[in-house]
């Protein structure tokens, strides 16, 4: 016990010490730059910054970042705080909503236009102004295996691509495909977009002045139908993914194993191809005609300037400095890890593109050649909307043979509806401060009265000693640290969410949001109500089954292990906690592979036993069964461990009494152990049940599918939370998400209160 106390004390001191770590207040004139996740690149930038400081006397701080994907939201949160960045490294598709929230400063890029690839400045052009300059171009093209197809034989048109793909495909003697000429993912729209476009389909059309018109969607025109025919022909040849659960990684791993000649992809897995000795190359995509190759969709990453910069002059002159040719050279070389030339950064600066560093390397030079054949992804806030709907629709068209014309029309309608939703603006309600005060007082006195009267009644009904003030004071002293923290990290978020649910806070309205009344709730009850009920039922059923099964499993295993010989039991125990200690994302993906209908381990096992294959994740009912079983697999160790502890508390007398009555071990388990555990674990079980409502794991396993094929309807395994998350976050409607979370809170809260009342009644009887 003494040792334990000392350890605890040590930990506590450490925790306290980590608070005192000092934070030097950044000088107001320092230019702060949020840069890369590659440390070598940050170091190079720091050298550049210190040269700049020596020359100009302006201090520059370079801050390493975890990921470029966080940049937009973090900028919105920090734009006006003491931690504000002045220059931010950001992806061009994100700038639309940043500009919409007035977070970015327009820049004069005329000096850069002839020193940078056109895509670098074009990508940051929004609403008539430039907002940034590109640094690296993340693009894709025609990746090919040089051993299977020579560079000069590469197809120049899409028709040729089709022929070559067919010609290069070889079969094994039993008819299966040995080498794929090409392999495409029919559900994909990013890599296949240039192909769609060559037939005349398009995502967002443009107005004559070059800006995007999000209401002009060409995904249901004649061209798109021709694309569908093209893809179906490829499917008939077996040159597409076999089922909708497979993804690009299947294609990429075919390529890594030398079984694929051509694919529409980038070089993200280049290190894997190298390690497998694949002689690969990347070339511009085929085109509609030989003269004009199709342009691949591209994400340009570059530098933007915070509208609220403290030192505008210093910031702009540092931006200019870091965009100079020789500094770009240093940065790009550091980003590609010098001589390793990883290809992680594909320069947008023309001088770097033509430097020996790039030109003397096969891959870097062919990548930078692609810059001329790239088109930036639409940077309007509405850009990402197609992700919400296109995969579902394309899946039903290609795998369920749905009527393409009808489905594509449904797709464009859904995109248009979301565009309209994002464009909606609400009138803010101004509430004077004294109304806030009055409301707060009102709520406070209401709660006070209720509590007062309720206590009166309870004290008068309940027999036994009434609590003493001294004990109460003492108890609250014990509880205060916990409750203060609970207030900060639980109660505040709840209150804040209730507030947010009454505003128009969204991805395009990050700063200037205000109260709009109950609009969000109205939206939910008028449009989102379909599916809400069926999903609620399924969520309850799911949570109940998982908790029930895990409790039974956990207690059973705990009791059996309790009786076993110490040594064997120790090993078993270590095995059984594995699901609990390994990150869920990786084990879930393992299960996804194990449960695959064709070639999954489980089905192979079934076939060995001469049993029929089971569509574990592709049939609605089986997908539900699998998700319950897999989630039980996840949570039973938790109950096993808790049960271990609780078993110790079961009084020996109960067992002895049962033994004297001649009960066998099954009866002892059923009538003594299980009820005892259940009683001791009621709060845990209710809690576990509630936790299942926050379960995102299922989404990794099934992605909510199989889908019903209609947009806006939940898939078979969609839980309330995953559905809401997708619905609200895909269109960046955070206030709507907040309103949903309040509704879920009330729904589950009522249920929890009821079950606690029932549980207490039963315990008292």
């Amino acid at each position: 016990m003494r040792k334990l106390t000392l350890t605890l004390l040590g930990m506590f001191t450490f925790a306290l010490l980590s608070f005192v770590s000092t934070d030097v207040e950044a000088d107001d004139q320092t230019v702060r730059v949020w840069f890369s996740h590659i440390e070598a690149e940050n170091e190079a930038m720091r050298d550049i910054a210190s040269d700049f400081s020596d020359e100009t006397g302006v201090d520059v701080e370079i801050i390493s970042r975890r990921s470029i994907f966080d940049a937009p939201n973090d900028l919105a949160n920090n734009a006006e705080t003491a931690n504000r960045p002045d220059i931010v490294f950001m992806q061009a598709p994100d700038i639309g909503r940043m500009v919409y929230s007035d977070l970015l400063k327009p820049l004069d890029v005329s000096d850069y236009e002839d020193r940078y690839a056109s895509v670098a400045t074009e990508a940051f052009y929004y609403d008539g102004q430039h907002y940034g300059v590109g640094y690296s171009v993340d693009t894709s093209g025609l990746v090919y295996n040089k051993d299977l197809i020579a560079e000069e034989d590469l197809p120049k048109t899409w028709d040729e691509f089709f022929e070559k793909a067919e010609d290069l495909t070889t079969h094994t003697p039993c008819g299966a495909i040995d080498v794929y000429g090409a392999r495409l993912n029919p559900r994909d729209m990013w890599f296949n977009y240039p192909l769609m476009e060559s037939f005349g389909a398009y995502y967002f059309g443009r107005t004559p002045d070059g800006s995007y018109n999000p209401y002009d969607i060409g995904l249901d025109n004649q061209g798109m139908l021709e694309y569908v025919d093209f893809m179906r022909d490829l499917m008939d040849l077996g040159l597409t993914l076999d089922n909708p659960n497979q993804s690009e990684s299947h294609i990429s791993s075919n390529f890594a194993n030398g079984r694929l000649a051509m694919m529409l992809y980038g070089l993200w897995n280049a290190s894997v191809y190298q390690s497998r000795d694949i002689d690969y190359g990347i070339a511009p995509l085929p085109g509609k005609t030989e003269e004009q190759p199709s342009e691949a969709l591209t994400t340009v990453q570059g530098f933007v300037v915070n509208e609220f910069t403290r030192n505008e002059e210093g910031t702009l002159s540092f931006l200019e400095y870091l965009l100079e040719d020789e500094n770009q050279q240093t940065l790009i070389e550091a980003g590609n890890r010098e001589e390793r030339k990883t290809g992680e950064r594909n320069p947008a600066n023309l001088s770097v593109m033509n430097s020996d560093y790039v030109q003397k390397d096969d891959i870097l030079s062919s990548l930078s050649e692609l810059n001329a054949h790239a088109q930036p992804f639409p940077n309007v806030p509405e850009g990402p909307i197609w992700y919400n709907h296109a995969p579902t629709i394309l899946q039903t068209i290609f795998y369920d043979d749905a009527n393409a014309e009808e489905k594509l029309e449904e797709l464009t309608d859904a995109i248009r509806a979301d565009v309209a939703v994002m464009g909606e603006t609400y009138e803010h309600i101004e509430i004077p401060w004294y109304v806030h005060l009055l409301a707060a007082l009102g709520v406070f006195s209401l709660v006070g009265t209720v509590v007062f009267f309720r206590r009166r009644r309870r004290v008068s009904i309940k027999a036994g000693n009434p609590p003493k003030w001294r004990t109460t004071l003492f108890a609250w002293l014990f509880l205060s640290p916990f409750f203060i923290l609970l207030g900060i990290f639980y109660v505040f978020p709840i209150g804040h969410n209730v507030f947010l649910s009454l505003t128009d806070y969204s991805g395009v309205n990050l700063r200037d949001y205000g109260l709009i009344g109950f609009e969000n709730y109205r939206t939910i009850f008028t449009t989102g109500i379909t599916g809400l009920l069926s999903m609620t039922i399924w969520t309850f059923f799911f949570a109940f089954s998982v908790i029930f099964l895990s409790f039974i499993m956990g207690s059973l295993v705990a009791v059996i292990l309790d009786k076993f010989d110490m040594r064997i039991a120790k090993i078993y125990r270590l095995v059984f906690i594995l699901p609990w200690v390994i990150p869920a994302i990786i084990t879930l993906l393992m299960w996804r592979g194990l449960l695959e209908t064709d070639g999954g381990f489980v089905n192979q096992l079934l076939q060995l036993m001469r049993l029929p294959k089971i569509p574990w994740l592709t049939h609605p009912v089986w997908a539900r069964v699998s998700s319950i079983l897999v989630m039980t697999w996840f949570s039973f160790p938790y109950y096993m461990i808790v049960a271990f502890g609780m078993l110790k508390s079961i009084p020996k007398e109960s067992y002895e009494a049962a033994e004297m009555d001649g009960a066998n071990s099954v009866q002892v388990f059923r009538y003594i152990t299980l009820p005892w555990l259940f009683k001791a674990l009621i709060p845990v079980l209710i809690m576990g049940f509630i936790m299942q409502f926050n379960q995102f794991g299922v989404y990794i396993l099934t992605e909510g599918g199989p889908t019903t094929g209609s947009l806006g309807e939940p898939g078979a395994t969609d839980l309330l939370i995953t559905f809401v998350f997708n619905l609200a976050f895909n269109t960046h409607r955070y206030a709507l998400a907040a309103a949903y979370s309040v509704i879920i809170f009330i729904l589950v809260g009522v249920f929890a209160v009821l079950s606690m009342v029932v549980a207490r009644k039963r315990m008292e009887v």
Partner: protein
Amino acid sequence: MRPKTKKRLIRALLHGFLVVLAFVTILPFGYIVLLSFGEGVVGAEATIPEAFTLGNYRALFEETAFASWFINSLLLSLAAMGIAIVLVSLSVYAFSRLNFFGRFKTFNFVMLVQIFPLTLSMVSIFRIFMVLGLLNRLSGLIIVNSVLASAALVLVAKGYFDTIPKEMDEAALLDGAGRLKIFYKIIMPLAKPILAIVAMQSFVLAYNEYVIASAVMTEGIDSMPLAVGLQSLIVGQYGTNWSLYCAGAVIGSIPMLVLFYSLQKYFISNLTSGSVKD
């Protein structure tokens, strides 16, 4: 002889059940280990790699900041565990032993606030971290994880504390012992099994927590905890390195297995309680 053969049969059946369960439990983990030695693995689904190498483990230490993630996570989880043990034992003692005003209401309150889907309110959590100046600090994660763990574990521990006979503290009270002394000298030693569980679970929770950590730790590669660091290997913009991730997951699970192994003596009862044995 008959009862003995029957007993043997039951034992065999139980063993069979455990072996099958162990197989199902270990299967995905086996694949993770295989993938962690795999060369040229692109996808994450359970497939057997075509070639094997030790390179992933080397790369983990040479090319990523794995070592600092690992240390960060250890510090974070140990500290959160320490705080959680203190918070849980203090508050559960009050809930279980002290007869005070608001006892039931506050206990229900602890349960009710946890219903709120925190994953949907990251915006608010972020605000709190910003106001308290905890952004990008390990200390912030320590606090929030110890609160998350305590809130959940108070409910677990209350059930156990209730089973410790009340006569014990009443007797001590008659002997003139103060509340604090009873708490420290009588209740705490008896509660060891559940405190071991609290320790284990708060450690695992802090160690694997990803959503909050990824939202509030955005600066610096070296300052991330393991869960976030590993994730950056697969959701980074330049390809997904599943073999590296698997290698990290395998090494990353070691501290939890060690902790479990060393704590299990506290919460595993002896051979005596069973009725199969006589």
